[in-house]
């Protein structure tokens, strides 16, 4: 059967936090791409298909916030799962696209894993 490694995109402008999040997910067996702005993320999503989920920060430099990215991504790639991460606030009801989840910074590894399962991202397997 071989190994199964779902592909994820991490969008975060703070390099240190992005680095840590990418490490955390890679350790769990995911294939992880990264972007530092919403604009960059849209480019990556457009060029490279097959992302299982996108995990995005809210406040980032550029023309679009993480909330804008989440909603646009839901329109263009409806099957892709969405997790929004911020230290700022819990977004009001209706701001997140359907099925998306919010996580507060700082992240805990178990909570991250549980949330990914809840939004429907398959766990990596290596058998």
């Amino acid at each position, binding site marked *: 059967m071989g190994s199964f490694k779902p592909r994820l995109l991490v969008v975060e*402008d*703070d*390099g*240190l*936090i*992005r*680095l*840590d999040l990418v*490490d*955390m997910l890679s350790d769990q067996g995911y294939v992880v791409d990264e972007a530092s*702005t919403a604009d960059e993320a849209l480019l990556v999503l457009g060029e490279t298909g097959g992302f299982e989920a996108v995990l995005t920060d809210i*406040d980032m*430099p*550029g023309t679009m916030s993480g909330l804008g990215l989440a909603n646009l991504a839901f329109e263009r790639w409806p099957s892709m799962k969405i997790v929004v991460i911020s*230290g*700022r*606030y819990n977004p009001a009801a209706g701001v997140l696209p359907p099925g998306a989840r919010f996580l*507060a*910074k*700082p*992240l805990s590894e178990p909570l991250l894993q549980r949330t990914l399962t809840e939004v429907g991202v398959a766990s990596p397997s290596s058998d």
Partner: protein
Amino acid sequence: MRLIGGGKCAELVRSFDWGESPLGYPNDWPVELQTLVAVMLGSLQPMLIVWGPKQITLYNDGYAAMCGNRHPQAFGRPFGQLWHDIWDQVEPIISAAYAGEGTSMDDIAFTMHRKGYPEETHFSFSYTPVRDPWGTVLGMFCACNETTAEVIARRDREEQHDRLLRILEVSPGGIATLRGPDHVFEFANEEYYALIGMGREIVGKTVAESLSEVVRQGFIEILDGVYSSGEPFVARGVPIELNRGPLGEPQERIIDFTYQPMSDRSGQVSGILVQALDVTERMDEAKRVELVANELGHRLKNQLAMVQAIASQTLRNAKDLRTARRVLSERIGVLSAAHDTVVQGGPGSSRVRRLVNQMLAVHDDAARPRFEVSGTNVRIGSRPSLSMSLILHELATNAFKYGALSVPDGRVELKWDVVGLHKDRFELTWIESGGPPVEVPSIEGSGSRLIKAGLAGAADNRVEIYYEPAGLRCVVSADLSSFQQEH
């Protein structure tokens, strides 16, 4: 003439030495005088008779009380002697009575010395001419009441009322009183006018007529409810639109207000006391405090996320737990010092120079400097300043461990500036020289990874590390405006 009873003044009539008086003995008095004296002495109301051309004065016990210590000397003497001190006021009306004209007055104020000191007194009285059957005026009959107590009580009430109004006038809140079921303004203080709009004419008009803009906002219904139920109404933080602008244009305010029913003596609601406090500015301030608290919470969470990332990077790549503990505490110490520069100067005051100096204080030797530093006085935002401190710390640590500073003659040149065609980028360059031969590390340590993580909060930020033969060179750059922005 036979006098029956009549109190102390009757005794005076009996014992008086009438032989010396222009009136002569009572038995010889004309019947008019005898009758009036009998009436007067029999009455409980203060009464006075002034008789004959000499204006001889007779009075009863009630009037004697009004004379103070001028009684009993004044009895049987000319009227002018009794009231010598106010004669200019009394003379015209007594003369009018002698001329056949009666006088009736509700309130006459006299300053009297009847108790040995000047005293304000008030009287209501009537002076009536007394004629013989042929119409000739023989004298004057006066029935009077001293109203001093009532007048002073009334004036006290009025003064109290005025004092209350003055207190209401300077009250820090808006106060108005309304009368009747249609809520007619009776009074409004300065603060109330300041709230509704200076110069608006409301007194004597109904609320609906003079503040027409509040009708559709539901305030009249509330007033009607308070008036009919007798229950007060209290509300806080209520938005209200009032035509209070300089040209009567509408403006939104936030008010705390109370409608308090006021009852008359029978217990019926007869009006409403309105108290209104403009809390617009206070609410703005409360909102601002909430914003600041949110912002602080946001920063704290971001910094915790940063510390979490540093801790996990440190532990992930550490040789052993002891080293990890030391390295981690150093890294957190650097963040803490960078944080001090942000907090001490206030937001927007952090400078690249200060962060560099903090690094030098730890890693350079003032007696034998190994850093050559040059840079402009560039401002740096709070988020990038934390990453910048960490990057400088990791560069220095690496240089001491593997790079130029690991040998006595090695040096570091550190420079920064605003660069680019449009002067829109910040760039810092770290150049090592005089060190051991440079090798590209086979395994990337946590220090390099933290350096490459770049400047948090700065757009388009890049970190390049070049392992050049002469020494390691690192260039950190970012978009200038976000590099300096306070998030």
